[in-house]
């Protein structure tokens, strides 16, 4: 094999060539734009080197939206292929690659960073802190995630995409059945991003445990902070399992080890087990912060405090522990003893109970509330019934005997989209709208936002409810076509229409942002929603030090009580504020990680070793670096606060 032939796409098609050109043009345009408007320095000093949790949050948000687009294009292509029977739009290889990348991109590179965006932006504000515990590490987390995502995304133009599903089961994912480099990309890109996520977990757990404002006891924390804490714990326990599984998978593929091999004692089911020991907690890593966000939005727009605070916390803690004891439900059909299946059936069903408790708590919060139907609230109200359907079908799947019928059909696909879209996606879209003024100082247009909501919701129902039916009728997932005699055709056409509506809603959301940038009023005050928790006690957009004076908390809804019950949040005078310095280290090190990963994917050993050395050099330099941060002087604080109209008292 010549050196360069390895970079060729094994199964090229016009679509791929077009996207190559499109990528090339986009990169040129960006470079040209940055040069033309002389923005390189701004980009470097304002963003690439930042350690500010708010800016990192915003970068996560942008990355997540880009990945939503990428994953969405995959989705539209798949559903277009399935829209009519015996369609020839995509061949089976392309279909395999597309559903594999769709799954990985949506879960790991869209939903995760979207959650991370909100955690980064909101949590330090909610607990009245000036940053996270380890700001530099936070930047490393972001850039590792970003480089992992980029590495994964270039796969379809360089060397070929993974095609063994987002769960990448062996032996299918082994060299014998997946000979091209696609699955190497899977193993290595997810590894890099995963390390970043693990660091985020550690960072946020430390932050939340140690950096809360005086008076904020654990049981006074806002619900999203609670959710982030619990999520961090799950991340810390779940991600190392993924790390090990991916190391083994990588070694099987690159060094011919025998972990998951079919010969020499290898055990393919070990992969499935390790993957889901991580994978099931992972779905809760996504949904718990989403629950947390709904728990912020619903009380605000119902003008009532959250019903059942304690039971909300208890059920999250319960879920976090329990989520580690249900993983086998993902392969009931793969031959373990009946009693094993029975045990995991029961544990799976039990996990629906705390989820149900939360649903009732949200309903009771709204009960007799004065509800305002804003965009964030619409997403929350839409979430409740739709998510409940997803939960109920989950319990159906949890019955191991019945699962022989449902497993790997469209019914399963409908289930998990039914929990992830109304659960996670609604939450992050609603929350992004809710926190938009905090991030950027202006509101998103409500009218356009409502259009987007309705397109998304109706599109969602049209797209996924028919899958329950065709799934029960036996339409398998991950199969690129079906014959007319199956009768699946009309339902799949409905699904395709739903998909198009959802795609339109994506463009509506983008347009909403564009429109609002141009037309929305730029001064919305500090508390546009009449909200309840601490993040609203500072200005919009938030100054870099977050709070000029660290707030003193004496109740659960600190800001609400400050507004309406006369609690005093900000006591004392300005003092100089210690802030961390920016650093190019995280970005540079992550770039080297990218090169290292790329070299591994293609087995270019020389480059890989250079990359590894580069990474260690970065760490060594960091070890010797002396960095005491810097101070913002009282004059500067006064100036900034004057511009905003002073500390909210």
């Amino acid at each position, binding site marked *: 094999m010549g050196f360069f032939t390895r970079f060729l796409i094994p199964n090229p098609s016009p679509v791929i060539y077009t996207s190559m050109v499109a990528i090339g043009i986009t990169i040129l345009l960006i470079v040209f734009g940055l040069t033309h408007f002389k923005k390189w320095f701004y980009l470097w000093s304002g963003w690439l080197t930042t350690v500010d949790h708010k800016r990192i949050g915003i970068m996560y948000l942008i990355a997540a939206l880009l990945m939503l687009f990428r994953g969405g294009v995959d989705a539209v292509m798949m559903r277009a292929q399935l829209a009519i029977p015996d369609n020839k739009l995509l061949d089976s290889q392309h279909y395999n690659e597309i559903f594999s990348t769709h799954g990985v991109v949506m879960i790991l590179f869209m939903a995760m960073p979207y959650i991370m965006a909100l955690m980064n932006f909101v949590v330090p504000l909610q607990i009245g802190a000036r940053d996270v*515990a*380890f700001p530099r590490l936070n930047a490393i987390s972001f850039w590792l995630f970003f480089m992992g995502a980029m590495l994964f995304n270039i796969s379809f133009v360089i060397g070929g995409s993974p095609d063994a599903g987002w769960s990448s089961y062996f032996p299918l994912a082994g060299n014998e059945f997946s000979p091209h480099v696609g699955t190497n990309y899977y193993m290595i890109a997810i590894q890099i991003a995963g390390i970043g996520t*693990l660091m985020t*977990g*550690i*960072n946020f*757990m*430390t932050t939340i*445990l*140690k*950096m809360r404002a005086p008076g904020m006891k654990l049981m006074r924390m806002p619900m999203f902070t609670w959710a982030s804490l619990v999520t961090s714990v799950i991340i*810390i*326990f*779940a*991600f*190392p*399992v993924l*790390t*090990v*599984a991916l*190391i*083994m998978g990588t*070694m099987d593929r690159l*060094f*011919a*080890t*025998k*972990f998951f*091999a079919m*010969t*020499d*004692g*290898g*055990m393919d089911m*070990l992969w499935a087990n*390790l993957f889901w*020991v991580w994978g099931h907690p992972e779905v809760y890593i996504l949904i718990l912060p989403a629950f947390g966000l709904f728990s912020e939005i619903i009380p605000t727009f119902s003008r009532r405090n959250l019903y059942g605070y304690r039971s909300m916390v208890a059920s999250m803690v319960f879920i976090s522990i329990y989520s580690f004891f249900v993983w086998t439900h993902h392969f009931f059909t793969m031959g373990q003893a009946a009693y094993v299946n029975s045990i995991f059936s029961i544990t799976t069903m039990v996990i629906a109970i705390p989820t149900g408790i939360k649903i009732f708590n949200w309903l009771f919060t709204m009960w007799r509330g004065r509800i305002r139907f804003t965009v964030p609230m619409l997403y929350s109200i839409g979430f409740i019934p739709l998510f409940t359907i997803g939960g109920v079908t989950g319990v159906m799947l949890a019955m191991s005997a019945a699962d022989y019928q449902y497993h790997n059909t469209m019914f399963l696909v409908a289930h998990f989209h039914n929990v992830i879209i109304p659960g996670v996606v609604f939450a992050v879209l609603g929350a992004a709208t809710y926190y938009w003024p905090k991030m950027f100082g202006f509101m998103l247009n409500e009218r356009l936002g409502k259009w987007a909501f309705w397109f998304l919701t109706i599109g969602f129902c049209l797209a996924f409810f028919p899958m329950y039916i065709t799934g029960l009728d036996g339409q398998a997932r991950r199969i690129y076509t079906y014959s007319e005699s199956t009768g699946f055709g009309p339902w799949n056409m409905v699904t395709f229409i739903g998909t198009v509506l959802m795609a339109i809603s994506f463009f509506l959301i983008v347009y909403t942002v564009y429109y609002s940038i141009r037309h929305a009023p730029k001064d919305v005050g500090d508390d546009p929603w009449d909200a309840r928790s601490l993040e609203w006690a500072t200005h919009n957009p938030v100054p870099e030090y977050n709070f000029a004076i660290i707030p003193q908390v004496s109740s659960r809804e600190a800001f609400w009580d400050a507004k309406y019950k006369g609690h005093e949040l900000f006591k004392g005078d300005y003092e100089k504020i*210690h802030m961390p310095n920016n650093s190019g280290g995280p970005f540079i090190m992550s770039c080297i990680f990218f090169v290292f990963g790329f070299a591994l994917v293609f087995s270019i050993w020389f480059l890989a070793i250079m990359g590894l050395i580069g990474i*260690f050099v970065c760490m*060594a330099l960091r*070890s*010797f670096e*002396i960095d*005491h941060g810097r101070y913002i002087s009282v004059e500067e604080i006064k100036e900034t606060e004057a511009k905003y109209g002073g500390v909210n008292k």
Partner: protein
Amino acid sequence: MKIDHSQPLEYSTEQNRLNILGFWIFLGAEIMLFATLFASYFTLVDRTGDGPAGARIFEITPVLAETFLLLTSSFVIGLGIHAMRLGHKKAMLTFFVITLLLGLGFLGFEITEFITYYHEGATLQTSAFTSVLFTTLGTHGAHVTLGLFWGTFIVLQVKKRGLTPETANKSFIFSLYWHFLDIVWIFIFTFIYMKGMT
């Protein structure tokens, strides 16, 4: 940076306390990492294919030597931290250097052990058992190697900058790491070697 003199140096600033807690949490993640490796090891231990089983390749002498070296090093770094608390920079540095030398000795034995296995026909690729064996031992060994570099950096920094809140903090955290590797080794010794030899 406020320094709290009622606390030991390594705990004396807010950032120091955060660092230590954060590192404990990191060790929690490390426990999960090794737990996963152990779980995989137990799953694959009898799946030797055509290759040798543990009982055939394990030898007690090098393993005992490794155990002795690493346990001693863990003890010595404890002395080092004690010296640091008393403010004896010289003694602390001596203990740290001894720790690192013992670690180096451990690594030397481990590498020769691996070479022996290789000559006895147990390579990374021989069977699922050898794959997981080498990966588990190798992950621990890689941690030790990284620790050697890290420890050296810290020794250099303490030497040059003296015992400051930062260097004391780093040294203390490094000692946590080193003790942790020791504990992992005890598990390896018991559940891989002792169990495998019987």
